[in-house]
């Protein structure tokens, strides 16, 4: 019986020949990522253990990204707890280097690994064919202390991509379309696997953007076939694959979707659900107060380039705050080298340090009562970006930048 990519990674991590959906296996974890969202809680629990110890400190990566730099005394205390613990125990620690998933992709993740992250968007690592899955801090603690955990083998939804995205249409429009189609729990407990000829037309930034958002359909993980683009990306970052898995020809999928990339259009997800998607044209003209270009979903150099190409020589609408937040320090530096930061600042954008920013409604750019944000962030839940009575529309870097110029929702062809 053939296996899917998810099944092959779990089998390898469990040290067994084959697995099938519904089986529960004890698995060795390759990496354990945690950020300042919940690490302080993990430390409190750890200190309460009888014989606290870390199974393999080399597997741990801790990243301060959600509230950096600190915005309050309370946050400072939580960061200090995390920083001191990391130092005392020799844990790889980043602060200000960028949003955790971008930092992990740039520096750590490789194909075929099994990774727990104490953050729901850990599924982003599937872009290089790694099984990343989000867990809470108790599951994280257990894995940190024992080096392993248990996993239920998920069923897999397979997405066969063909064709090529049209100009002005992005990978984010693709994944929002898919989430709209299958619903916010359409992949609950399942793996979403992407392959086919169309995948070869998508670069690594596109792939991260797609995998990152799969949790918004409830997915346990997202996985892409390893190809020349994957190997090239890893090589560029000084890494080699652990495994280069593809699904077997006779692998069993819960459902197979065939998607022609040429049929995808610019999409907007309306408040307050990520699967509440419509053709972007249906939202044109909706007033906005703030626009956000950034996050682990769309803060890479490719996104900043796309935004800069649209806004170059133009101005941010006088009544709009346009927040531009590179996803990592490496992205920020690259954008500086390319003159992209100059372009945004000349247009009147507010360029900020790499962090999660208004995507999770803390630290920077929080919106007030009845305000409207258009965002490349990951979620548009009620109150997600600030006041409980505020509104978040999700869209691509192109649509967000065009909207910042117009002061209302607009697509790139309108500016």
């Amino acid at each position, binding site marked *: 019986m053939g296996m899917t990519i998810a099944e092959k990674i779990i089998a390898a991590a469990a040290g067994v020949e084959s697995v099938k959906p519904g089986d529960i296996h004890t698995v060795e974890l390759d990496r354990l990522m945690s950020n300042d969202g919940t690490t302080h809680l993990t430390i409190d*629990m750890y200190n309460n253990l009888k014989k606290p110890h870390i199974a393999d400190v080399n597997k741990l990566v801790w990243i301060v990204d959600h509230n950096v730099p600190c915005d309050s005394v309370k946050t400072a205390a939580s960061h200090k707890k995390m920083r001191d613990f990391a130092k005392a125990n020799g844990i790889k620690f980043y602060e200000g280097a960028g949003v955790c998933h971008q930092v992990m992709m740039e520096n750590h993740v490789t194909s075929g690994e099994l990774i727990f992250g104490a953050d729901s968007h850990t599924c982003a690592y599937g872009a290089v064919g790694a099984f990343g899955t*989000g867990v*809470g801090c108790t599951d994280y603690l257990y894995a940190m202390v024992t080096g392993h955990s248990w996993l239920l083998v998920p069923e897999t939804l397979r997405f066969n991509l063909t064709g090529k995205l049209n100009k002005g249409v992005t990978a984010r429009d693709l994944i929002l379309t898919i989430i709209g189609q299958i619903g916010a*729990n359409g992949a609950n407990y399942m793996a979403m696997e992407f392959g086919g000829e169309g995948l070869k037309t998508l670069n690594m930034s596109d792939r991260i953007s797609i995998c990152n958002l799969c949790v918004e359909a409830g997915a346990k993980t997202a996985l892409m076939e390893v190809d020349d683009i994957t190997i090239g990306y890893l090589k560029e970052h000084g890494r080699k694959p652990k495994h280069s898995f593809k699904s077997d020809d006779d692998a069993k999928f819960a459902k197979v979707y065939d998607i022609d990339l040429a049929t995808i259009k610019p999409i907007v997800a309306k408040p307050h659900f990520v699967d509440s998607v419509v053709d972007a044209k249906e939202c044109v003209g909706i007033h906005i107060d703030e626009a956000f270009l950034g996050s682990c979903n769309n803060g890479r150099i490719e996104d900043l380039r796309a935004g800069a190409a649209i806004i170059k020589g133009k101005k941010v609408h006088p009544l709009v705050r346009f927040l531009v937040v590179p996803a990592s320090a490496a992205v920020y530096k690259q954008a500086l080298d390319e003159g992209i930061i100059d372009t945004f600042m000349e247009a009147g954008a507010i360029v900020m340090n790499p962090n999660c920013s208004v995507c999770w409604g803390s630290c920077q750019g929080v919106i007030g009562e009845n305000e409207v944000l258009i965002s490349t962030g990951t979620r548009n839940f009620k109150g997600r970006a600030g006041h409980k009575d505020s509104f978040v529309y999700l869209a691509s870097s192109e649509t967000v930048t065009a909207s910042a110029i117009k002061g209302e929702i607009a697509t790139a062809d309108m500016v």
Partner: protein
Amino acid sequence: MDKFTGKVWVLGDDIDTDIIIPTEYLALKTVEDMAPYAFSPLRPELASKIKPGDIIVAGKNFGCGSSREQAPEIIKTLGVKCVIAKSFARIFFRNSINNGLLLIESGQLHDVVTEGDKVTVTINKCIEHNGNEYPIAALPQNLVDIINAGGLVKAMRKLNGLD
């Protein structure tokens, strides 16, 4: 915990973790401090009205969104006996067990129940409401043990003779 009866609070589909506890309150020191703000974007009055032993009944995809473990912790802190939903998001499901919050899937109850009704849950058997019985799946004993102990860490401490 084999059988219990509780008053029901009814919520809809896709109750996300930012509804359960908005980001701005996560910086508060303890879950007890956060608890009054539970569900505040949707129903600001709810946290003050929930009494120990009450039951939350919701639609599909309860707990979708973030991996923040404060979400199930806060529901438990409010004294909620269990959450009964059409389905749960997977990270929230694991986090709930790890924090000793009982979750029960029922595809039917949400469609027939009204806020304020009383329901009786018999673990591993059924939910009774208005004279009707709705079957529920059995929980493996190891998960029941974790929930009864108040979560995974407490269960491990008990197992190791620490508590």
